[in-house]
């Protein structure tokens, strides 16, 4: 009995430690925007990239760090804007990229000037691309002219394309449902799809305007779910 007692306690200890370690990054509301930026900077490793097409290795968890930080920052809302703008101006390339990406979801609360400066001056194409997206998501009609101007001097093909999307969008701001979906998302559900278990349910809009729920098909049809990256 005694022999079993200690390993048992030890196991409980490990399980508790593992549960704590798993929960720690999800305490979204206990981290300030500054702490989320710090969390990202500490845990994001930019070495998960091989040769083109730059797919992360299967065991690389960097994507989770990006997802959690992005969600924490967007959930923080308005108070995250100032620290993000500071990082957009002064951070390292990875921090600037995250900042531009997060500002895209907070777009209606963000001043246009710093975003335009990033599109104009940032040496990193990904920062410029996400800054263009953020500008587009503000839904302002006075950015078309400066963006069209920047399109001419832009050298990166992808950034040029995102400027074209922005001009095509005709001043419609980011859908508040998208922002709420990210803000209210339970980060415990990250990477929760497991073979043999119930597939994580979701609700998403289709391009033709309907809302589709995975559970709509339960009891009716099997579903083939294909994740694409824009390769329609």
């Amino acid at each position, binding site marked *: 009995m005694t022999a079993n007692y200690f390993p048992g306690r030890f196991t409980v200890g490990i399980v508790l430690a593992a549960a704590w370690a798993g929960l720690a990054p999800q305490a979204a509301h206990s981290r300030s925007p500054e702490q989320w930026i710090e969390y990202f900077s500490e845990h994001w490793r930019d070495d998960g*990239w091989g040769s083109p*097409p*730059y*797919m*992360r290795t299967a065991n*690389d968890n960097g*994507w*989770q760090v*990006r*997802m959690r930080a992005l969600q924490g920052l967007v959930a923080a809302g308005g108070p995250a804007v100032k620290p993000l703008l500071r990082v957009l101006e002064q951070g390292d390339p990875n921090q600037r990229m995250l900042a531009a990406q997060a500002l895209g*979801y907070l777009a209606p609360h963000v001043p246009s000037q710093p975003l335009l400066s990033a599109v104009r001056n940032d040496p990193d*194409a990904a920062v410029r*691309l996400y800054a263009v997206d953020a500008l587009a*998501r503000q839904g302002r009609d006075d950015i078309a002219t400066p963006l069209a101007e920047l399109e001419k001097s832009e050298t990166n093909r*992808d950034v040029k*394309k*995102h400027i074209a*999307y922005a001009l*095509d*969008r005709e001043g*419609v701001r*980011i859908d508040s449902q*998208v922002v709420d*979906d*990210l803000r209210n*998302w339970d980060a415990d*559900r*990250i*990477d*929760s*799809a497991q*073979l*043999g*278990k*119930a*597939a*994580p*349910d*979701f609700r*998403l*809009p*289709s*391009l033709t305007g309907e809302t*589709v729920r*995975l559970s709509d*098909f*339960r*009891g*009716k*049809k*099997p*579903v*083939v*779910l*294909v*994740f*694409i*990256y*824009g390769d*329609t």
Partner: protein
Amino acid sequence: MRDRLEEIENRGAQLLAVDPHEAWSAKYLLKEVGLQESDLSYPLLTDSAHVVSAMYGVAFQMRIHTEWSNRPATFIIDRQGILRYERRANTFGDRPTPDEILELLEKLD
């Protein structure tokens, strides 16, 4: 490829495609290849909050077109809502063929 997709649907399965972009860029990309959203026989779903891609473990795993995108992946969920097949690409374009999908669907019954 597109008529093979119809075969999947004729087989009684529902095909759902998830794109990590906003509807604006998804429509723009379709337009570039001469298609409209109504030309697709299956729903193209936009997951621009990336929450569904994150639940299925594929968000931000590939850097393409300068941005972070989904790792290409295919999942099959049976009639009871149980996840029965997963294939997360290890290389660009690594996907099951329509024949493989049809065969997998056959095995579900």
